[in-house]
C-alpha cells in the first residue's frame, strides 16, 4: 500500500518537485547558524580568558570570586617584560619593512611580464606550513651558513610570513589604480617623485597602513617559526608557550598578560578593518 502510494506520487509530480527535500527552508539557517556557532567558539574563549584573568582560580569552572591578584603577580614579576619588548620591536620592524617592500613590489608587479607566476612565488610561504618553513630557515642559517641565530633570524622568519599578506593588500589597490592619473600628472609637468607623493601615495595609503598593521600583528603573535629561529632570544608568544607548557602555576599570569594584549590588539584591528572597508567602499 505504502509503496503504491509512493509510486503514484512520483509519477504525477512535476520535475521541480523531485528534489523536494532540497526546498526545505531549514538549509539556509543551518548553514548560517553552523558557521555562527563556530564564530562563537572562536570568540567565547577570548571573553572567558578575560573573565578568568580576574578570577581567583582561573582554571576552575566558576569565575567567582574575582580578584586582581594575577595582575599584581604579573606586574611584580618582570620576567615577561623583556620578551614583550622584543616582540614589539620585531613586530614594528616587520610591519615597517613589509609595508615598504610590499608597496615597492606591489606597484611594480602588475607591470612585469609574468605577474601571475611571480605572485605565486611571493605567496609560496602561505602554502608551506609554518613549522616546515621555520625548520628550513633554521637549517639553512644554522647548519649551512653557521650563523648565530637571534633577533635577525626571527625578523626574517616573520617577514617571510607577513610579506605575502602585505603584498596582497597592496595589490588590491595597485591593480585598481588608474595609471592615467600618473600620466596626467607627468603631462602637467610633475616629476616622478611628485606624482608618487601627491597622487599615488595618498591613494595607496589605506593599503600601506593595512599592510603595516598586518605585518605587525602577524609577527607579534607568531610562534611556530620563532621556536626554530629564536636562538637565545624570546618573544612574548614563545615565552607564553614555554610558561604554559612547563608550569601550570604560571597559567594565570599568562591569562592576565594575554588579556592586556587582547585589549590593545582588538581595538587596533577593529580600527584597521573600519579603515580598509570604509575606504575601499568609497573608491
Amino acid at each position: 500500500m505504502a509503496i503504491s502510494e509512493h509510486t503514484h506520487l512520483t509519477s504525477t509530480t512535476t520535475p521541480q518537485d523531485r528534489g523536494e527535500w532540497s526546498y526545505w527552508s531549514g538549509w539556509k539557517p543551518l548553514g548560517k547558524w553552523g558557521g555562527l556557532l563556530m564564530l562563537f567558539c572562536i570568540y567565547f574563549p577570548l571573553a572567558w580568558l578575560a573573565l578568568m584573568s580576574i578570577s581567583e582560580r582561573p582554571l576552575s569552572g566558576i569565575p567567582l570570586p574575582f580578584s586582581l591578584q594575577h595582575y599584581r603577580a604579573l606586574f611584580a614579576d618582570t620576567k615577561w617584560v623583556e620578551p614583550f619588548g622584543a616582540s614589539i620591536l620585531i613586530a614594528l620592524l616587520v610591519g615597517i619593512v613589509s609595508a615598504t617592500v610590499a608597496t615597492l613590489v606591489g606597484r611594480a608587479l602588475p607591470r612585469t611580464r609574468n605577474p601571475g607566476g611571480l605572485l605565486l612565488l611571493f605567496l609560496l610561504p602561505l602554502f608551506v606550513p609554518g613549522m616546515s618553513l621555520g625548520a628550513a630557515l633554521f637549517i639553512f642559517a644554522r647548519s649551512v651558513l653557521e650563523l648565530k641565530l637571534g633577533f635577525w633570524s626571527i625578523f626574517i622568519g616573520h617577514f617571510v610570513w607577513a610579506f605575502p599578506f602585505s603584498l596582497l593588500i597592496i595589490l588590491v589597490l595597485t591593480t585598481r589604480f588608474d595609471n592615467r592619473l600618473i600620466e596626467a600628472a607627468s603631462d602637467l609637468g610633475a616629476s616622478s617623485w611628485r606624482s608618487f607623493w601627491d597622487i599615488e601615495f595618498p591613494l595607496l595609503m589605506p593599503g600601506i597602513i593595512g599592510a603595516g598593521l598586518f605585518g605587525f600583528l602577524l609577527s607579534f603573535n607568531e610562534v611556530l617559526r620563532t621556536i626554530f629561529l629564536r636562538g637565545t632570544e624570546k618573544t612574548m608568544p614563545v615565552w607564553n608557550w614555554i610558561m604554559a607548557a612547563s608550569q601550570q602555576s604560571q597559567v594565570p599570569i599568562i591569562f592576565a598578560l594575554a588579556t592586556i594584549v587582547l585589549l590593545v590588539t582588538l581595538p587596533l584591528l577593529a580600527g584597521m578593518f573600519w579603515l580598509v572597508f570604509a575606504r575601499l567602499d568609497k573608491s
Partner: protein
Amino acid sequence: MSAALKAEAGSPAGTTRWTGGLAAMSGRNWVVPGFLVIWTLIVIVPLVVLFSYSFFETKHFQTVYDPSFDTWISLFQSGRFEVTLRSLRIALTVTAIELLIGYPFALWLAKGGTTKTTKAVVLALLTIPFFLDLSSRTIIWRAILGQNGLVNSILTGTNLIDAPIEWMLYTEVSVHFGMIIAFFPTMVLPVYLAINVIDEALIEASEDLGATPFQTLKNVIFPLSLPGVLAGIVFTLGPALAAWVEPSMLGGGFVNLLSNSIESAYTALKYPVVAALSTFIILLLAVLLIIMLLIARRFGDLSSTFRVLKS
C-alpha cells in the same frame, strides 16, 4: 641614477632622499628582480636546503654529509609511521568537517541575501583570529573543557551528569575540536571569495530552467567555487598536518603528531630528521594538491576562475 638626481633637484626642501629614489626605482623596474634575489635567498634556497638535508644522517650529534635514504627509511619505521598515519587521519578529518560546516556558511554569506554590513562584520570576525596569539587562545580551552572546567561545572551543577566528563580534554576529541575552531577561517574565506564572484544571473538562469536548489548547487555553484574549495583545503590541510599548538596544549602528551616528532628531533639536534619530517609534510601537501587538481579538472574548468581573478 640621473633621473633620481633630477627628481631630487626638483623637489622642495624637506623631501627626504628615499622618496625621490622610490619613484625613480619603480620607473627603472629593477625593484621586482632585485627583491626576487632576496626572496630566493630567504625562501627558495632554505627550502631546497631543507630537502637536501633530509638525505643526511646524524651520528654522535654530528651531521654526516653522506647522502643516503636512511633518514627517510626511519620515517616509516617503528612508532614514527604510526605518528604519520595519525597526523594524516586527524588532518583529513578536520579538513572534512571544516568543509562541511564552512561551505554552507560561505554560501549563506555570499549568496544568502546578507547585507553589506553583515558581510563586512563577518569577514572581519573571520580575519581577526589570524592576528591573535594561538597559544593563549588554545590554552583557555583547558579551563573550559577540563575536569573542573566550565562545561563540567555547568553539567554537574544542573545535575545533568553525576561525574565530570573526562574525554573532553587531553584526548583526540579535544585536539580535533581545537583544530576545527582554529582553522575555520582558513576554510571559509577562500570558499567565500570564490562563491562571491559567481554571477547571480547564472544561479537565476538555473532556477528558471527548473533546477532544484540542490541541482543548482551541484551543477552551477559548486563547480564554479571549486578553486576556492581547493584553496580552502590547502590552507587548512597544511597547518593541520603541521599543527603543534593544539595537540601539545589540548592533547596533554597523549596525542603525538608529526610536529611533536619535529620538535623532539630538533631538541635532540637531529637536523636531518627535522628536515625529512618537514619535507615530508610539504610533499604530502603537494601530492594531495595535485590529486585534488586532477579530480577538480573533471568537475569544472579551473582556468575560468583565474580569468575571474584577472578581471
